């Protein structure tokens, strides 16, 4: 699955790092680093984290089937 966090919205509440600690990690007190392609097995945790974000900054892939460009499909 794919994740991106709008870090200009993020205020470092760390709710995501509580609920999906393998995917979202605090770097110091306030800075967030995250894994943009977490394992699908973590989907439930990631959705919990995204829902809990107080500023709704976490975007999780909404699509099962995307129109993947042909060139990219090989990678």
């Amino acid at each position, binding site marked *: 699955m794919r994740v991106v966090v709008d870090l200009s919205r993020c205020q470092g509440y760390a709710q995501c790092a509580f609920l999906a600690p393998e995917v979202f990690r605090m770097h110091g007190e306030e800075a967030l680093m995250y894994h943009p392609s977490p394992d699908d097995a973590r989907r439930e945790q990631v959705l919990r984290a995204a829902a809990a974000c*107080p500023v709704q900054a976490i975007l999780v892939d909404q699509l099962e089937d995307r129109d993947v460009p042909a060139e990219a499909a090989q990678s």
Partner: protein
Amino acid sequence: MTTTEKPDTLLRILDYSSRADPYPLYAELRETPVARQADGSYVVSTYREIAELLHNPHLSSDVRNLSRPMEAVQGRTTPSFINLDPPEHDRLRRMAMRHFGPPHTPGLVTGMEDDLTAVVNGLIDGFAGKEQIDIVDDFAYPFPVTVICHLLGVPREDEPRFHLWVDAIVNSIDYNPETDPKEKLENGVQAREDLRQYLAGLLEQRHGKPGEDLLSRLANDDGPDGRMTDEEILATANLLLIAGHETTVNLITNGMLTLLRQPQMLQRLRSEPGLVVPLVEELLRYEPPVHIIPWRAAYTDITVADTVIPKGSKIMLMLASGSRDPNRFHDPDVFDPDRRDNEHLGFGSGIHLCFGGPLARLETQIALTALVQRLEEPTLVTDPPPYRPSPVLRGPIHLHIEQNKN
């Protein structure tokens, strides 16, 4: 925009008779986003203004910055971080967070999931053979209390003792010298002192004995900010014990009440377990456990919604009203777990955002999932249910349900 045109709206909200449904009164309140009250305090009820103030550094959480000293519900004890400003607030919260969450202890809450599920299932097992179940006394109260006791390192068997203290403290939070008997306040002050004494006894035993519980960890911590003083530890433990008692119980109970009022939603949650995640967020918006931040102090003159709030004024923030503001949420009075845009105020915002929010979320998700899975066609016995006295930490005092026995 300031007027005192409806000074009685707030009083009607605080009156017990509106506890079951304060929302129409919140709508009335929102007609004046920042409303000056007869006593010179201000009530803020609209989403954007509340959110703005929660991020305004000129708002203080320290009682000493109120020009009119409040009847000190706090007693003479050291304040906890909820009643402090930066840098003290930040330091104490950071030191407590070291043992509860990221960055120092990131896996603690998720690591509790199996234990939480076991407690929940044990409580539901206890429903067997009962004619009626009280979702509060039989479930929503004992569950978070067990959890917070375990987390803090407070013996569960002492719970009946401090249950009474916590009740008295919560009842005194919204003490109004104009309308309430003095003993409501005095009971709260005495209960705080008793609870402090009790926790001090526990803390005494933890010094020099490293352990897994929060009291032991705080008593023996050697983090970058040093160690909390005993008074600071007691204030922190006091805060967490009360919050752990009195908030999640409301969230779980309000959740069950909302589902029982909308059986199709209950059915949907049964067949769609993943729904519980957005559903709990929607609960935090629609029926939050904390309705009001009873006071903050204007550290300087503050302008909000074209209103100047003078320095030293008491400001009341109506979180539950803000989360129902139609200027922020589409169809705010509809309970809609599919809502995409849900930046609710259920846990507040800014530096004082609920410390235990992640645990409360997980507890409620697990609790509601188990309840809807295991209860057989539950129905409400009385609607509306009876409510606890507090307009601040608002929720039913009992929630009786019956199951289909076939």
